[in-house]
């Protein structure tokens, strides 16, 4: 497991904090190495990250189950929150972005929204401290699913004119059509899945690194007070800055879940109506 504990341990035990300006453990890869598999099923290793993936899924299921279990006229605060979240995805994303026919994509959009939201908040959860979307597996898979959905929907709805409308856009002057068509083609079929996955992945990696570095180095500096004396005071600054980033990451975690879901809806919408 990368992150805070490994970093603090590495810095504290392997670095000459007095003399070295940049301290790197002997093998930097250890910072990115994940714990030994807990157990192995056939060829598949079950690691802490795998466990967190499943935990996120179970938390989503539990949230929805307890939020929607009772059919009451006046919901509790928790039920109202969960219900308004579901309504937000169904009405605010599926229906508003895609249109009335978009409601049938709600199961997919709600699933990815909830899974990414919970997974991102793992970054800020004590004792987990690890955003599962900072591993490529789920962003990669979900952006691939979105890709297949919008390509299949495009062909199913428009036939071959789905591609021709993109490659030869009629709303653009003839002279520009080859250029715009090429850009649109590459953007739609090559860049969309890539950017969708990388946006989420990179944001969570960056947030996780920031938190780990700031909080970790803050703790490391403060703990090294015996060796470096008053210079350890800078650790307080790093730690405080880390706490500020922590608040910032709350926004990022929610926003990235929203952006991923929103863009999936936008891509599906653009396949239903490629002329726009």
């Amino acid at each position, binding site marked *: 497991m990368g992150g805070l504990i490994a970093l603090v341990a590495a810095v504290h035990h392997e670095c000459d904090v007095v003399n070295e300006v940049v301290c790197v453990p002997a093998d930097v890869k250890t910072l990115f190495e994940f714990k030994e598999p807990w157990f192995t099923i056939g060829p598949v290793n079950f690691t802490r990250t795998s466990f967190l993936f499943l935990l996120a899924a179970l938390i989503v299921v539990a949230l929805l189950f307890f939020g929607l279990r009772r059919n009451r006229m006046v919901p509790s605060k928790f039920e109202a929150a969960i219900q308004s979240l579901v309504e937000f995805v169904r009405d605010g994303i599926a229906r508003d972005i895609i249109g009335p026919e978009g409601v049938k994509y709600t199961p997919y959009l709600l699933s*990815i929204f909830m899974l990414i939201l919970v997974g991102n908040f793992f970054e800020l959860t004590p004792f987990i401290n690890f955003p599962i979307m900072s*591993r490529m597996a789920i962003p990669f898979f979900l952006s691939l699913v979105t890709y297949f959905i919008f390509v299949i929907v495009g062909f199913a709805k428009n036939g071959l004119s789905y591609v021709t409308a993109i490659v030869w856009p009629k709303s653009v002057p003839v002279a520009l059509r080859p250029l715009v068509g090429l850009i649109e083609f590459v953007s739609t079929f090559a860049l969309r899945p890539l950017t969708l996955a990388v946006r989420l992945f990179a944001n969570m990696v960056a947030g996780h690194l920031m938190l780990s570095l700031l909080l970790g180095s803050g703790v490391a500096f403060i703990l090294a007070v015996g060796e470096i004396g008053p210079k350890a005071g800078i650790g307080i600054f790093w730690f405080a800055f880390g706490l500020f980033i922590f608040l910032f990451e709350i926004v990022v975690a929610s926003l990235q879940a929203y952006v991923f879901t929103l863009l999936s809806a936008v891509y599906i919408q653009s396949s239903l109506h490629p002329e726009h």
Partner: protein
Amino acid sequence: MRTNLQLAILAQEESGSNISLVLPETNELIAGIVSFLIVFFFVWKWALPAINRILEARQKAITGKLEDAERAKNEAESLRKDYEKQLADSRTQRNEILDEARKNAEQIKADLLAKAQTEADGIVAKAREEADNEKSRALSEARQEVANLTIDLAEKVVGQSLDRETQLGLVERYIAELEEK
């Protein structure tokens, strides 16, 4: 002399490509797909039907409540109109009763006054009649007395008793003559 940073970069280059940190691991990919499928099937088969049920029930309940409220409002409105009408009716009725009572009272008062007047008149008339009677009786008595005295006087003057009946006739005639004068 190499810095630690250069050492670190070298170490990474030696131990393989960094692209492996970006690409998904098979283990995690499998776990990720399983997680997604768990969530997706739960949402698809249970969560969305549940929220649709909840929202429909709530919508129905709220619509029903609104209709109830509308009906209650209308009822209250018609009740209010009834009450106002009754109030106005009773006010008119009260006025009528008062008018009638006043009229009755005036009638009774007038009757009583008239009756009292009649009684008073009766009493006065009776008193006057009695006084007249008294007066005429006194007169006749006085006349009788005068006649008697005159006769007695005449007897004493004449010195002898005249025939009383004749003398009475004389006196009467004399008085009648006086009255005629």
